[in-house]
């Protein structure tokens, strides 16, 4: 497949890096230095130029491209680029936008601006914040098989209910599969005897109910309770959408925004939230408003540093969990190391969404784990599939090593995969695979 990526920022680079193994990737970038860098880092062709110019697009070969991904940091540029591509070629166009208004317009017709698929950074980020907040101790959650199956990643903290247990001891949940343990850089496929250690990250696949049960077992102390009170710091678009989604879930929200006009706008748009106009790093204010009583605090300020500060202050005041938006990808690990429970990068979220969409191919749905250490893939079993009519045990033997079958849904009902479960045509299979075998797995199924 020939893919043209417009814009080589963090998002563009991440997408290009994911696609360059099995596709012809062309990257259009305005900054010549950045082009130079990418040429050496990735196996891609870089074109120095403006993605909205017809000449540059022609030079990049969009006439023969199967897919064009507009992923610059500027919404309007991405939209115009997609429109321009549509005017001169038949390529499938994907645009990344931040502004939800554009998404609304696009959803009206699904073809507005000549865009075939649109991903909205602010909304996606807010959705992943809300998913993570919904599960105590979870740091990543993705739905599969129309929501019947959930993949979740948890960090095993000190005092967690499963720390120190073996996998067979911890396996108290009827529809839950322990897919993998991430231990440092290593991906461990657990057996019954594998011991779950503190600081491991554990990937589970199961029914939403069992994942929820597991989540409250994993979580320690206060975090175990359901989230009913949330504080959002920063009335950015992400903050606004998180508040809106919380409102829909009947979580009582306090949103802190420093700018008076913006605070007023937010108060008008969020009838169910209490908007407070103040500096979120003002400790007196935080104490006066009893921010420490909140179950969760979400840092959605424009500055990473202020988010970090707000989260750490909140922790000290007694907030159960903190989730921070991090603009700069390299900070993610740092944030989680110094005490922020979950750090979410909008760029990573959107890059994952685009990659997921482009990689799907045979798969229905893909989730990338920990900046692509592993993948969780959903596939529908076709009549000619090697899995059809086989038991799980037989299937696993025929597939690359270290692939784990996490869940199966048949006609919308959840089936826990065990060794002798027979896979039927039409089943949706959700499987885990470390990055090095994911490609092979997708190809075989």
């Amino acid at each position, binding site marked *: 497949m020939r893919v043209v990526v417009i814009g080589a920022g963090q998002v563009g680079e991440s997408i290009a890096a994911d696609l360059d193994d099995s596709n012809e990737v062309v990257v259009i970038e305005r900054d010549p230095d950045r082009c130079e860098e990418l040429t050496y880092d990735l196996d891609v062709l870089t074109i120095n130029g403006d993605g909205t110019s017809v000449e540059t697009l022609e030079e990049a070969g969009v006439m023969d491209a199967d897919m064009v991904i507009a992923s610059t940091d500027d919404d309007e540029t991405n939209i115009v680029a997609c429109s321009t591509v549509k005017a001169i070629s038949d390529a499938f166009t994907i645009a990344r936008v931040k502004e939800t208004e554009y998404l609304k317009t696009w959803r009206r017709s699904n073809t507005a601006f000549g865009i075939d698929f649109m991903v909205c950074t602010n909304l996606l980020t807010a959705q992943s914040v809300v998913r993570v907040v919904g599960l105590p101790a979870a740091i990543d959650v993705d739905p599969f098989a129309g929501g019947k199956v959930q993949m979740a990643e948890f960090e095993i903290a000190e005092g967690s209910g499963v720390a120190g247990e073996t996998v067979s001891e911890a396996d108290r949940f009827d529809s839950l599969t322990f897919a993998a343990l991430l231990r440092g850089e290593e991906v461990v496929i657990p057996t019954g005897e594998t011991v779950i250690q503190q600081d491991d990250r554990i990937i589970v696949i199961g029914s939403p109910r069992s994942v929820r049960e597991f989540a409250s077992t994993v979580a320690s102390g206060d975090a175990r309770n359901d989230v009913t009170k949330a504080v959002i710091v920063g009335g950015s678009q992400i903050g606004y959408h998180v508040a809106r989604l919380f409102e829909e879930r009947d979580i009582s929200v306090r949103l802190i*925004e420093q700018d*008076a006009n913006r*605070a*007023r706008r*937010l*108060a*008008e748009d969020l*009838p169910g939230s*209490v*908007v*407070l*106009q*103040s500096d979120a790093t003002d400790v007196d*204010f935080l104490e006066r*408003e009893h921010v420490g009583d909140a179950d969760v605090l979400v840092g959605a300020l424009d500055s990473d540093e202020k988010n970090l500060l707000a989260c750490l202050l909140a922790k000290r005041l007694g907030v159960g969990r903190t989730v921070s938006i991090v603009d700069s990808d390299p900070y993610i690990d740092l944030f989680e190391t110094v005490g922020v429970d979950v750090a979410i990068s909008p760029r990573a979220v959107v890059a994952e969404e685009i990659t997921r969409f482009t990689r799907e191919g045979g798969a229905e749905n893909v989730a990338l784990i920990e900046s692509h250490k592993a993948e969780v893939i959903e596939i529908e079993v076709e009549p000619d599939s090697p899995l059809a009519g086989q038991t799980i045990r037989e299937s696993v033997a025929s597939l690359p090593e270290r692939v784990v079958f996490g869940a199966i849904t048949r006609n919308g009902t959840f089936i826990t995969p065990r060794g002798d479960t027979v896979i039927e045509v039409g089943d949706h299979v959700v499987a885990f695979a470390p990055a090095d075998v994911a490609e092979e797995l997708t190809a075989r199924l």
Partner: protein
Amino acid sequence: MSRTGWSLTVRYRASLSLVGTVLRYLAVPLLVPLVVAVYYGETIAPFVVTILLTATVGTALERLDPDPDIGAREGLLMVALTWLMVALVGAVPYLVEAHGIPGIDPAAHPGSTLGHPSNALFESMSGFTTTGATVVGEISFDAHTRGVLLWRQLTQWLGGMGIVVLAVAILPQLSVGGAQLMDAEAPGPGIEKLTPRIAETARVLWGAYLGLTLLEITLLYGLHVAGPPLGMPGLAPNMDLYNAVAHGLTTMPTGGFSPEARSIEAFSATVQWVIIPFMIAAGTNFALFWHALTGNPDRLFEDQEWRVFLGAIGVLTAVVAGMLFAGAGFVETAPAQETFGSTYLEEIIETIPGNAEPALRHALFQVVSIVTTTGYASIDFNAWSPPLKYALLFGMFVGGSAGSTGGAVKVVRWYVILKTVRRELFTTAHPRAVRPVRLNGRPLDERAIRGIFAFTLLYLVLFFVGTLVLFLDTVRVHDGMTVLEAMSAVAATLGNVGPGFGSVGPMGSYRSFSGAGKLLMVVLMWIGRLEIIPVLACLTPEFWRR
């Protein structure tokens, strides 16, 4: 005076010219009572004289500025003056009826109380402002001609939806600046433009108003012609065509005049039940009818103001009906009522307690009548006990919805005030909280909220000052009026309600006040109908400066 650029004062000639235009066209509705007078073989002098007068004065004023161009201030002045002039001219038929034209047409009813200029002006202002307070001594066809009594009804109908709104609807010269004029006249904070053209909006509103009026007349008279429904003679409407028309003309404007001395009490229970929904409709924002008729009926039930309006009626009705039913609603020794004697009161005191239908009917009728500021009476509520009277006095401040024909403060203002107070309580606990006050889900501008507080405060100040002045005046003339009576008289005229308590009760009249007291109330009615600001603004020196 320069027409363009900075003008140093209000262009009052432009305002007067437009007042003249409206006045000139007032000759047209005057033809209605003229025709009625001819039909009943009565004197036509009151209407001929008034038609000649309005045509002459109107044309003369119109000549002051052949091409009037109005801004915000000219608009306010025009609206305020229009209502004053119309009330003055509207008093002429009463005077002519009482005094006649010497040598040409003898007085039709020489003893009429309306023969006194202050009385005639009071009655006319009360009519146009849809107050419904009367100074007529004896309301009957013996004391007055049917033509003049119909004119009295018609003034209310013209004033209900608004003379200026009507003028904007039909006079092309008012299409520019029409929105400002309507804003100055229409009840409630701000107007809702239903269509891009303001004249079209005005026509829509008047169309709904006319349609509902015709529907009510048809129902009232139709039921009378059809006879008692279901063969139950007790349900006969008992209302002739003249009365059906007369009450149709005063229900929709929430006026309250009746050509019957006993108001709606003179008619059957069926008539009273028919009139109740029309009073409620009159207290509803007319824009909602438009939405309902143009395929958006949900808007009516989603409208918070309307729900609060119905809720207020429901709660007050439940209280009043409960007390009437339990027999706790009447004073033990009812004061002998001047017009009908004590047997009448004994009769109602005996028949209502323990009887659900009349208790509910009178409670609902009276509450709706007072809250919508219609001012009809299905019963002499003077005989009610003090708690119920205070409940009704409270109802006089509620008023109808914004954009209705009802008077007083308006439901939406109280609702916004309550929500704002709740917000203030919340921000006491959370000083940094930002909380917009919402109406129908939409956040209200803080300036609009300030305006609502200012209006309501001004309204209450006027009420207290008015009460004080009126009470002092009655003391001066040794009237022996109670403070509750004076309060109710001021609340009823300022709010354009009509009847108060005591001597100004539903079966009584305002004629015992001094001339000064009546003029005070004429001003209160005028100010109340235009919602204070247009009139008071015109009285400030700042208004007349650059």
